């Protein structure tokens, strides 16, 4: 092909236009979905790698409360590590020393600071308990008893949402 012919064919090329309408539609749908799922829970909870929550068919939402997290390796209260867990046993939390444990002291402190607010709002104090599904009742019973002693007899067990077993 000669140089002249090549120039003529280049002139014929039209600049292609991007079709943005369909992309806009897609982005709008994604944006709405993300905005809806962004605002459905009172606060975000970061689940670590060593915390596997059990699945449940409950549809009750959790409320803002003092968070106790019992992972495979540690016991935390509102993100602060309280005690390590070894061989399915929380170190420093035995049935004999519940009232001298760090968990009891922390809960008591928290209770004294939030009690006037709860009484004003007429709200029952409760604990949001997030526990790894592999823990035995023996392990979690010490935590539950300590909470009860510190003035938190009501619990919300944090679980992962599962669709009903009866479709």
């Amino acid at each position, binding site marked *: 092909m000669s140089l002249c012919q090549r120039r003529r064919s280049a002139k014929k090329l039209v600049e292609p236009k991007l079709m*943005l*309408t369909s*992309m*806009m539609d897609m*982005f*709008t749908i*994604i*944006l709405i979905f*993300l*905005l809806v*799922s*962004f605002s*459905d*829970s009172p606060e*975000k*909870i970061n*689940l670590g790698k060593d915390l596997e*929550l*059990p*699945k*449940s*068919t*409950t*549809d*009750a*939402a*959790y*409320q803002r409360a003092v968070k106790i997290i019992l992972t495979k390796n540690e016991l935390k209260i509102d993100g602060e590590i309280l005690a390590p867990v070894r061989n399915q046993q929380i170190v420093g939390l035995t049935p004999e020393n519940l009232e001298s444990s760090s968990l009891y002291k922390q809960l008591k402190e928290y209770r004294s600071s939030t009690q006037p607010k709860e009484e004003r709002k007429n709200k029952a104090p409760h604990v*949001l308990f*997030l*526990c*790894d*599904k*592999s*823990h*035995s*009742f*023996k392990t*979690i*019973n010490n935590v*539950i*008893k300590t*909470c*009860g002693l510190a003035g938190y*007899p*009501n*619990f*919300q*067990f*944090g*679980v*992962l*949402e599962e669709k*009903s*077993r*009866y479709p």
Partner: protein
Amino acid sequence: MARFSKNRRSGEEEPELNMIPVMNLFMVLIPFLLSSVSFLHIKAINTSIPVHADGPSISVQEKVSRKITVVLEIKADQVRISTLSDTPNDLQVSEKEWVLPRSNKMGFKVAQVADHLRKLKQSYPDSDTMILIPDDEVTYWEIVQAMDCARADNSISLFPNVVLSGSLG
């Protein structure tokens, strides 16, 4: 209409909306929302532990209605369902027990427990409380399963007030 057809005839191009600023905005918003959104939905099961209370525990009105309290014990080798009642007429019901085999490896059959709880609920529709007593070795996952089948069966509310208690023995 006449103008539109005139425009078409004269070959004038329709003005196009500039979408690029909107797209830029979307490109900023979507990564931000994607990084902060959680795809695991955490829900809650409400429960409580027994507390010491002073004074009469049951009001006279409550005694009139036929209410029972279901006791679900998860033991190493079996699941036992029994009932407690405060009304003298229902004392015979507290003597009845229902036992289902269980193993630490396999757990228990949730459907069978739910079926029995549904029957109890049909007999005592005013009842709404269950005491759950797991053995020390029962896992948290199994406790949640037991709570699930106590709360509702096929969208029928059974015993939604679950009280978690340790065994006394």
